[in-house]
């Protein structure tokens, strides 16, 4: 059921992430190994808001073009960038301008020349059909009010034989009414 309009949901999410502070490394340490985190800019680590580690399981190869949907401050984009190497590309997509600036900054400060950030919506990916080898996404799909469309878009941009590796929250039963109507619960 649509408890929020698409516009309302996006507005709540954008506002939250525009002002999100990276308080500590707890999320990152829970999801990534020390080895994965070493060499990453502090900002990217502190602003990790994912729920899993999709890049680890995505089977990335050097030369791959990989898209990180909802890249935030870029931690998964950077991890992907290091796996695909200089002949590959890591594309970060996000709808929050502040996060994109941070992701670009983090890529530059870590010395990655193979990272591009793009502003846009997961429901309308600004990429051509069949232009990407792998899509990764970390705790982002749950924020969409049209998940099927976001998935259809991922399918569209993937070349035939491409792969998706998502980490996200799944419900095993319906949430109580007071939670689904709560804006904080939408984002958190």
């Amino acid at each position, binding site marked *: *059921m*649509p408890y929020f309009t698409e516009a309302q949901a996006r507005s709540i999410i954008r506002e939250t992430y525009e002002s999100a502070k990276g308080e500590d490394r707890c999320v990152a340490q829970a999801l990534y190994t020390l080895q994965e985190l070493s060499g990453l800019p502090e900002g990217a680590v502190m602003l990790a808001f994912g729920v899993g580690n999709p890049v680890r399981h995505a089977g990335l190869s050097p030369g791959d073009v990989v898209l990180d949907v909802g890249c935030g401050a870029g931690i998964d984009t950077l991890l992907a960038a290091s796996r695909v190497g200089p002949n590959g590309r890591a594309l970060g997509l996000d709808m929050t301008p502040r996060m994109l600036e941070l992701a670009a900054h983090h890529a530059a400060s870590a010395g990655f020349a193979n990272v591009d950030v793009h502003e846009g919506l997961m429901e309308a990916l600004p990429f051509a059909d069949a232009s990407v080898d792998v899509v990764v996404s970390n705790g982002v799909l749950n924020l969409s009010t*049209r*998940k*099927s*469309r976001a*998935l*259809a878009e991922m399918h569209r941009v993937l070349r035939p034989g491409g792969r998706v590796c998502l980490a996200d929250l799944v419900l095993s039963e319906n949430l109580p009414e007071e939670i689904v109507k709560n804006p904080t619960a939408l984002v958190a």
Partner: protein
Amino acid sequence: MNTPDAVPLAAPTEPGGRAHDNRPRFEALALPHLTHLYKLAVRLTGAAPDAEDLVHETYMKGLAAFPGLREPERIRPWMSRILARLVLDRYRSGPREVAVGDLAELDRFSLYDLVWDEDPLPYSDDLHHDFLAQFPDDEVRRALLALPETYRVPLLLLYVEDLSYRELAETLGCPMGTIMSRLHRGRKILERELWACAKRRGLVRSDDR
């Protein structure tokens, strides 16, 4: 409201007035509504021959009951009521009607939610509208006819005759609370039938929901 009629009305016919005396007045009042009643009968039964029989019998009963009609200007709802009662009496649980099943579960059925969750048209910006637009007319009619007549009759009277709940209660001889629950459940059965149809036609996945 008394409107002038082609055949001048005397005072309401006397109780026990003879059929052949009443016939010209009855015909003058009732036959203009034949097209309307026939359409209602087809919508109620789904079959032209059944509808013809039904309408035929409605007029026979109408003539016999005519002396009791106090408000001649309300002859159309009066005839519709006779027709509806005939359907209820005659068409008990037809073979193509669906079993209603668990009523509490039925009450909670929501085609809206199922379409929202399934999202079979991801690129549609008016999902529910576009979903409904995929159903051909005959499937919608079939879904309606799949309702047991207990639910189909009040729903069609609501749709076609635009009767209030009070009028429906009088027409069908049951309490308003019953009318309310039948109209709710009738629509829910309809939603359930449309969803089943969508699954059959591959408009949505058919694993069990």
